[in-house]
């Protein structure tokens, strides 16, 4: 066996092996959408009637070493999107808007779930039905702009994104 054929054989066997090792050694990609220290995971939304509202839930986490701020959210689905919190006062469940910017401390997260904090999509351009997809653009002071796409579902059967 001459040098050239030995080299060719080595490459045939070695390159796939290297590729396999590279794949095994690659850092694990976090689920969801990552930008800078920000990850956005588990997003889903509720059905809503044209001209009315829908809520979206999920978790925005700051894995960085500095605070980051959510400064704006937009979507082709609705002209106005706000972050709202539900609080119980005077025997009533009261909704309160969180002031912009929404600061997320390092190591902290904005967890949004039914009955608590949520993104409220207001004045929907069209009705959102089970299975529909919605795109959100979230702007962060440090991490920049991120786009997430999620599905409309319900609490009992949340779509996996």
């Amino acid at each position, binding site marked *: 066996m001459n040098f050239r054929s030995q080299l060719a054989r080595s490459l045939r066997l070695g390159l796939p092996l290297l590729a396999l090792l590279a794949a095994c050694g690659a850092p694990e990609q976090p689920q969801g959408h990552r930008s800078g220290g920000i990850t956005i995971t588990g997003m889903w939304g509720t059905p809503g009637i044209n001209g009315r509202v829908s809520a979206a839930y999920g978790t925005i986490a700051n894995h960085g070493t500095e605070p980051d701020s959510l400064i704006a959210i937009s979507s082709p689905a609705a002209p106005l999107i706000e972050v709202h919190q539900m609080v119980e006062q005077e*025997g009533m469940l009261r909704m309160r808007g969180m002031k912009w910017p929404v600061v997320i401390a390092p190591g902290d997260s904005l967890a949004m779930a039914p009955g608590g904090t949520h993104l409220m999509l207001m004045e929907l351009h069209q009705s959102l039905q089970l299975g529909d997809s919605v795109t959100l653009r979230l702007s962060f002071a440090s991490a920049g702009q991120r786009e997430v796409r999620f599905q409309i579902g319900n609490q009992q059967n949340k779509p996996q994104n």
Partner: protein
Amino acid sequence: MSKQPLQVLLMNNGPGRSRNVWESTLAALLLLLTAILFWGCGNAVGQASRSYQLTDEHGRAVTFPNDYRGRKLVVSYIYTHCPDVCIVTTTAIEKVRKQLAGKGDDVSFVSITLDPRRDDTTALRQYAELRGIDTQNWHFLTGAESTVDSLLDDMGLVRRRSFIEQNESGRETYFIDHDDPVVLWDREGAIRDRFKGTTLNSDDVAQAIHELP
């Protein structure tokens, strides 16, 4: 002659003892009265003071609660601009309904709007359809604002408009802070139990429905 034993009692035992006898008798009578009331009313915690003319999500006239007499009834309160709380409650009730599948033929579900000004029959029908709710035994009721407000007051619903804003086109936007009860009525139209919608345990509600006579 008939008063003599009492006179003897008074003479022999003094005024303090006689007061005790009267108090004991009164207490026994009160207990008897309470027992009679419970016998007649079961454990009812309230009922509608009158009937209300409403409309369901298909535009059909409904007299509430009279039209549901003879059936067990699960009543909740929602509005279609509600982004979160009402949806949590509605989803929880749907879970109860599915849990009762095959055993709940004598149960009706009713969701009454907190916002009759904006929730017409079309909006309520869309609200149900978007969530895949079968409206055969679940009705979404609205009506004249004054009628619905009277009903909500009658039911003791605490509520208040909030977030009142006008958008660019001048249209008023508002939300409603509100209580989130899910109320169980018996076949006679008496309120038997009350649960909190946002923390509703479907097993508890299904059990309470099952235990109603």
